[in-house]
């Protein structure tokens, strides 16, 4: 039989029991819709996170205290692993080949400290992050002022009480008003025990957007010594200047391993670590962060796709079930066809094509359904998906759902494969029927 004959025969058979065909197809439609919608959600989340991490700049390295694997809980300065401003200075002084610039930073709330900072201006207040840093910060983080000026060496030396506002803080406290030269208050600490300082606003940062864990626009930037010397909870009892992170801008990404090694040597020596002791700091590059985030996203995607595949398998079993019923119902037809000259191969093809027609139509409808679900999710349920995703510690606020052509083709391929896998056995049963037996069957 020619391929078009086989397809016509299949269509006639399927049309003769249209309700059954549609119900069988429904399993595949749901399965493929789920595959398309869930992979779109997964890929959308991945893309959102990846874009933001890439936004950090690919030439950035971070050094943070601790081993990077376990969090040690509440740590006040002088406890546990620590990094110091002096460490950053030493790295800068070593003039490691490939290092462009170094900027250390300390934040309140610090990681592990259960209290935050509040920015206040004329009765308006907003919860924020107080970030103490050096003049190199702008260049290292590729994050510049949009109006006014950034902190200067003079500010650092004088421990001046000046601040540069993040775009969101400026908007929250000042609205459209120009904040430069205004006096505002920042308090740090828990409730009644908080300490407050008056600062003069000298600049406003450009808008940057949220990163994987913090909103870079919700920040108040001040010179590191001003912050370290005056906030009692953060001041180190032994007189060092604790920093929560050292940012390093490198010239050439290919030198990252060498730079990492050089910094590790310097810091281990400074921290007097014996050969066999683990480092009390860890160094990450943007690509490391990206790899971690991608890993988390991949796990999520695998989870989502597994759910989708399970529903596809259930749909496939439905196909097999109905095909077996169809073969036993049509035993006589098979006998007649064999009597007039159909070979085993002809019968086999007839039933496989029937299964393939059902699954391919189901696949097409499923792709359409998946794209439709994606559109609806994008408009109405973004928030809920975000809740789900943030529970995996990822901020995908405003992420988009990405239906890629690869997944559409994969969806169609999967539906056809389902038809093939679950159609072969019933078709084989049909093909091996003995014509005399088949003709005798009522």
């Amino acid at each position, binding site marked *: *039989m*020619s391929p078009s*004959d086989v397809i016509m025969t299949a269509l*006639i*058979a399927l049309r*003769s029991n249209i309700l059954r065909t549609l119900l069988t197809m429904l399993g595949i439609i749901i399965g493929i819709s789920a595959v398309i919608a869930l992979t779109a959600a997964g890929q959308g989340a991945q893309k959102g996170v990846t874009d933001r991490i890439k936004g950090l700049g690919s030439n950035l390295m971070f050094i943070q205290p601790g081993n990077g694997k376990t969090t040690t809980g509440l740590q006040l300065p002088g406890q546990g692993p620590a990094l110091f401003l002096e460490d950053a200075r030493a790295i800068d002084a070593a003039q490691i080949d490939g290092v462009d610039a170094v900027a250390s930073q300390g934040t309140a709330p610090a990681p592990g400290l259960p209290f935050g900072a509040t920015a206040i201006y004329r009765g308006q207040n907003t919860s924020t992050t107080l970030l103490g840093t050096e003049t190199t910060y702008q260049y290292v983080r590729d994050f510049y002022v949009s109006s006014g000026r950034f902190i200067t060496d003079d500010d650092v030396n004088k421990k001046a009480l000046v601040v540069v506002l993040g775009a969101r803080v400026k908007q929250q406290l000042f609205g459209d008003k120009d904040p430069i030269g205004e006096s505002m208050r920042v308090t740090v600490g828990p409730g009644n025990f908080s300490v407050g300082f008056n600062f003069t606003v000298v600049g406003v940062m450009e808008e940057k957007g949220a990163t994987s864990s913090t909103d870079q626009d919700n920040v108040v930037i001040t010179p590191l010594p001003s912050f370290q010397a005056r906030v009692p909870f953060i001041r180190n009892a032994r007189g060092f200047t604790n920093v929560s992170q050292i940012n390093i801008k490198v010239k050439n990404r290919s030198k990252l391993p060498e730079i990492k090694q050089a910094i590790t040597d310097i810091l281990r020596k400074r921290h007097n670590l014996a050969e066999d002791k683990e480092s009390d700091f860890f160094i990450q590059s943007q690509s490391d962060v990206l790899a971690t985030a991608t890993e988390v996203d991949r796990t999520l995607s695998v989870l989502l796709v597994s759910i989708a595949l399970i529903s596809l398998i259930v749909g496939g079993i439905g196909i097999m079930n109905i095909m077996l019923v169809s073969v036993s119902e049509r035993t*006589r*037809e098979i*006998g*007649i*066809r*064999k*009597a*007039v*000259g*159909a*070979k*085993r*191969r*002809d019968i086999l093809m007839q039933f496989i094509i029937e299964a393939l027609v059902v699954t391919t139509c189901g696949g097409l409808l499923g792709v359409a359904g998946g794209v439709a679900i994606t559109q609806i999710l994008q408009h109405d349920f973004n928030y809920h998906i975000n809740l789900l995703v943030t529970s995996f510690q990822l901020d995908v606020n405003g992420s988009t759902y990405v239906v890629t052509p690869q997944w559409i083709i994969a969806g169609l391929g999967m539906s056809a494969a389902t038809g093939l896998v679950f159609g072969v056995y019933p078709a084989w049963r049909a093909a091996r029927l003995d*014509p*005399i037996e088949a*003709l005798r069957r009522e």
Partner: protein
Amino acid sequence: MIRLRGISKVYKLGSQKVHALRGVDLEIRDGEFLAIMGPSGSGKSTLMNIIGCLDRPTDGTYELDGVNVSRLNDSQLAIVRNRKLGFVFQSFNLLPRLNAVAQVAMPLSYRGVTNRNQVARVALKLVGLESRMHHSPTQLSGGQQQRVAIARAIVGNPALILADEPTGALDTRTSHDVMEIFRSLNEERGMTIAFVTHEPDVAGYTRRIVSLRDGQIVSDAPHVPAYSHPGAPPSIPAAAATPVERRILGSAGI
């Protein structure tokens, strides 16, 4: 030309062996019209299935148009059934859902004939169903359904038409109509026809009657056909002129 030599068939029913056929010798020449008769259990259906290449003999040789069919595999047997044989069954065995043209064209689809609907229409005309071409089996009477089945059997221009109790499901009058068609196909088109029946009346149309009992041929005698049945359909005009008709009738020698 069909030649059966020492054909026997043994079925195993559990531990018991059932001898359905015990050394049957039978020759059917081109253009013959014969009936195979016998009581139930005499082996006539088994013989029919073997001649129809639906079943293989346990022993003996079967030559169909010079080919030893008993040695062929499943796929080759399917080709033989498709090209050399035409079946007519007691219960018509039409496919539900298909109209008459599609029913008749179906065997041709397995050999990739492209203008098969045209050929099918000619075959339907030969059995007098030109006005019922697009009816499905449920819209046809029993006699009409059996005529569609006959058209399906002859459409591939087979060497032999086999019919298994072709009138078993029909009333007397319709039976005679169907037998008239067989008679005219044989007489006017020269087609070779063999059928199984247990009705002497129906067997009376043929020119040879083979009787079976307990798996053996007990009599094989020429017979003078008696046709003069009132209400028989007019015989089919012999002047089949179109190339397609000639193709159908091809080896029938017309």
